[in-house]
């Protein structure tokens, strides 16, 4: 037996295993570092005023109320409008199109839209909504967020519907139920948890999106619920305050960052729990 070779292979293997462990440690350390710093600085900037006062200018005091409300308004309209479209398109892929040519194209295009840079979506909405309506508006921001919601919902809906056993569909069809009733009363219901997971993931995805709002909704320092004008929103407030020169604005930016991250992470944890319950 070639002892030298044996030792070398063993040593090499050990080094490789240590490196993989280090890789995992590397990932976990950054996660802890980011979340730790975020909690530390975010809690420092957090107070009841964050939720009760408007966004300030300069070194004045204030909160983030209008930005929070603006973000919630735009995100909820975007989700309410985008989800049915995504749900129906995903249903087409899983139930009707399957291996057809249109389904192939839709699937390809959808996966590109899913990972395409979100700033591109901003440019698209700028050309299609902002330019024709002569101005930045909450509606434009909502459309941009909606365009991001759709591919997420399409992807999860198709995946979840494909997991529904065909026996269920066949049993319903054998009872004489028409295809559309089978889909609505049986397959959708069977895949409900998965579809909700997709919607939660979509909400998580858009609540932190900043790039598509940069030149669609812009931002607004004042209280505004008028969706046809500039719309205050949390990500833009963070962006502008972080780039400002004032310490109190930096503190507000961190408080906003903590709010967004807490929302996004709890949504994705909820989605995960729901997924696990299903399986």
């Amino acid at each position, binding site marked *: 037996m070639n002892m030298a070779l044996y030792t070398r292979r063993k040593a090499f293997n050990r080094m490789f295993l240590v490196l*993989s462990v280090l*890789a995992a440690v590397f*990932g976990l350390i950054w996660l802890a570092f980011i979340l730790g*710093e*975020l909690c530390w600085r975010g809690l420092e900037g957090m107070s009841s005023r964050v939720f009760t006062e408007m966004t300030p200018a300069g070194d004045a005091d204030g909160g983030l109320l209008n930005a929070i409300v603006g973000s919630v308004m735009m995100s909820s309209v975007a989700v309410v409008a985008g989800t049915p479209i995504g749900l129906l398109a995903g249903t087409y892929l899983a139930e009707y199109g399957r291996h057809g040519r249109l389904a192939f194209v839709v699937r390809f295009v959808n996966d590109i839209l899913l990972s395409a840079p979100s700033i*591109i979506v901003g440019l698209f909405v700028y050309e299609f909504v902002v330019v024709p309506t002569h101005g930045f508006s909450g509606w434009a921001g909502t459309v941009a967020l909606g365009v991001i919601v759709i591919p997420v919902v399409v992807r999860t809906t198709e995946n979840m519907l494909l997991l529904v056993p065909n026996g269920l569909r066949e049993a319903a069809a054998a009872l004489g139920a028409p295809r559309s009733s089978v889909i609505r009363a049986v397959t959708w219901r069977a895949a409900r948890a998965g579809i909700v997971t997709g919607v939660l993931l979509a909400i998580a995805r858009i609540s932190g999106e900043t790039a598509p709002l940069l030149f669609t909704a812009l931002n607004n320092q004042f209280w505004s619920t008028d969706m046809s004008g500039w719309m205050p929103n949390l990500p833009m407030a963070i*962006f502008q305050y972080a780039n400002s020169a004032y310490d109190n604005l930096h503190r507000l930016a961190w408080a906003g*960052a903590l709010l967004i991250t807490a929302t996004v992470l709890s949504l*994705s944890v909820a989605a995960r729990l729901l997924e696990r319950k299903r399986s």
Partner: protein
Amino acid sequence: MADIALTENLAAVADRAAVVRRFGMRDAGFRWLTRLAALLVVLVFAGVIWSLVMGAMPSIKHYGWSFVTTEAWNPVTEKFGALASIYGTLVTSFLAMLIAVPVGIGIAIFLTEICPRPLRRPIGIAIELLAGIPSIIYGIWGLFVFAPEFQQTVEPWLIDLLGNVPLVRALFEGPPYGTGIFTASFILSIMVLPFISAVTRDVFETVPPMLKEAAYGLGCTTWEVMWRVVLPFTRSGVVGGAMLALGRALGETMAVTFVIGNSHHIHTSLLSPGTSISATIANEFAEAVGDLYISSLIELGLILFAITFIVLASAQLMLRTLERRSGGAS
């Protein structure tokens, strides 16, 4: 009696026919509704391309190829060249992949081979949380926490270490700014790490246990099993995952905008400030005046979309191939 039964029957038959017709119509209506939604997705995609091409037209006509070959970026004289932005996008993404691919694969190996079973799920979820953190959070963290720390510790060390090595020297010259190409690349690598490790772990799990057991049975070490059996078997999946991550890195906006330094000049040193396509658009679009300025920014967007499209399309191709193969095998 018989007459009555017959008419009743006729009525029932007519009823049934009406119901079936109604069902049929509702079916067709629903089918068309889903088809319409699916078409809408394609329409949005076409709209994206159309709006970018249309918006970029004035700039394409005005500058032609010189747009992608010059570095000048001067809104006052309306001289626009995308070279610095394209350079920044490509270099930051390349460096990010250089760090993220080996580390991501390492994490996947850790999760599938080394990690004790009860810890696999929580550690996997923790790594994936990195993908859930919105990019603006990476941006603000990078700007206030990471970059100052980097400026004081890692960058001076790099300059000391590599500043006198011939050839490499040029890449690590100059003062430590904190923000710059290298900082942006490093933050990008953390951001795309979970995409690589998640896809890689998933494809590793498609390897038939028999293959691995056979290799172990021959006396292979874990390294040899991974390198000679698992990786060749899952190659297209791993490459597909890496391409997916590359697509993310190329288009990432907010994190990069905060830390890249926003300079429209190409420096050989990786420690000096630069810009990327998405950072340029994010910083300048809302304040851009003049059709040519706006059009130039949209042309930048078009270039970015073209690059990411190619990368994402090939990623899909590779992942699909793997899917088909593993679907056929089972």
